[in-house]
């Protein structure tokens, strides 16, 4: 079957691949491009482990067809650190011991980033809402909520 060309910007660099029609963005990122930071936890849209940011919006890469992302700008957790310096969210997840098995972590960080990009000083309720599509089975969520609030505080201090 004929392959379909797709082209998008991933974490600041241009990517072009030939894929099978119907390939999900999750498959394209992981299997074709080799960015395995989005995880396949359910392929149903119920766990959030595959979350990525497409043109500024949080999306589930498991339910997004790659060919609908032509020309898009995509951010994944593997692209957050700049020059080896961790993003404030990554730093906060470390400092608050918010990771255990780590499988949900990249998706959680994407969901949190989508929140902080629009709402730099969120309330606890806003953080809870922002993380509500992402499942964690290890932590009981509280350390993750604290990590996002910590990162937001760090951001606002830097801005001030």
């Amino acid at each position, binding site marked *: 079957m004929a392959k379909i060309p797709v082209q998008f910007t991933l974490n600041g660099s241009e990517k072009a691949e030939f894929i099978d029609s*119907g390939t999900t963005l999750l498959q394209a990122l992981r299997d074709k491009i080799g960015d395995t930071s989005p995880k396949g936890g359910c392929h149903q849209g119920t766990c959030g482990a595959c979350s990525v940011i497409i043109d500024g919006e949080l999306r589930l890469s498991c339910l997004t*067809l790659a060919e609908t992302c032509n020309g898009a700008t995509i951010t994944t957790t593997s692209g957050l650190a700049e020059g080896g310096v961790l993003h404030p969210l990554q730093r906060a997840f470390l400092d608050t011991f918010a990771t255990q098995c780590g499988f949900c972590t990249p998706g959680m960080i994407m*969901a949190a980033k989508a929140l902080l990009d629009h709402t730099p000083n969120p309330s606890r309720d806003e953080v809870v809402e922002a993380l509500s599509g992402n499942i964690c089975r290890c932590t009981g969520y509280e350390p993750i909520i604290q990590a996002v609030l910590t990162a937001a505080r760090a951001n606002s201090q830097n801005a001030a």
Partner: protein
Amino acid sequence: MALALQTFATVKAANAALKAAGTRYLGGGTLVVRAANEGDVSVSGLIRSTEPSLSTIAVAGDKVCIGASVTMAAIAGHPELGTLAKAARAVGGPAIRNMATVGGNLFAPAPYGDFAVALLALDATVSTDGGETPIETFLANRDGSRAVVTSVSFTLPKADSFRFLKVSRVKPKGVSVLSIAGALELSSDGTVTSARIALGCMADRPMRARAAEKALIGRTLTADGIAPALAAAGDGTSPITDPIASAWYRAEVLPVHLGRLLLA
């Protein structure tokens, strides 16, 4: 057959393509791509249209027309659709709301389809290239519906006349135990002059609570005033049983939650 996506500039062309066997319309992907991922091999072709009107929200006075591809997030964030924001936010988590569309929600089986419950209470009209259909008729016939939904239209309710409640086990995002939407108009003395109440999870698709609506007319929104409506709330319902709750439970708590919504 591998899964293949075809994209068309017009709804008309998409409708033509949907005549082929094994095709489904791709909205936000939250229903169809999930089905394909889970091994539903009955779907081999996905069809979508990029016609701009599908993604447009048009508000003229109190008349609203929402394109079928408009997402829940777009509705929740629209400055003139504040009364519907709660119902739009009731759907999924943030990522799902950035993807799930108005058109798709009309087809979501219970316990999903909370926004369609709101649209039913608004007595919306569903448009396709073939014409306009009252939402209640559309929902009743949706299983055989093949034509691409292009938009839904309704009269925007006044802020205090529209109420929405979703009850879920998991917060803030769980799927519905039940959902209730109510469009109520009151006279100056507080008596109900018109009422439309729609229920989610009380059947396999959103339904109107006509007996309760009727019982509210001429009554005030007090504990005594709504008692006949609560007693009639379950009339005609056949609640679903699923992992979230049994039909028995849904039937038992429907009047409780309806009462809380009406008295809120």
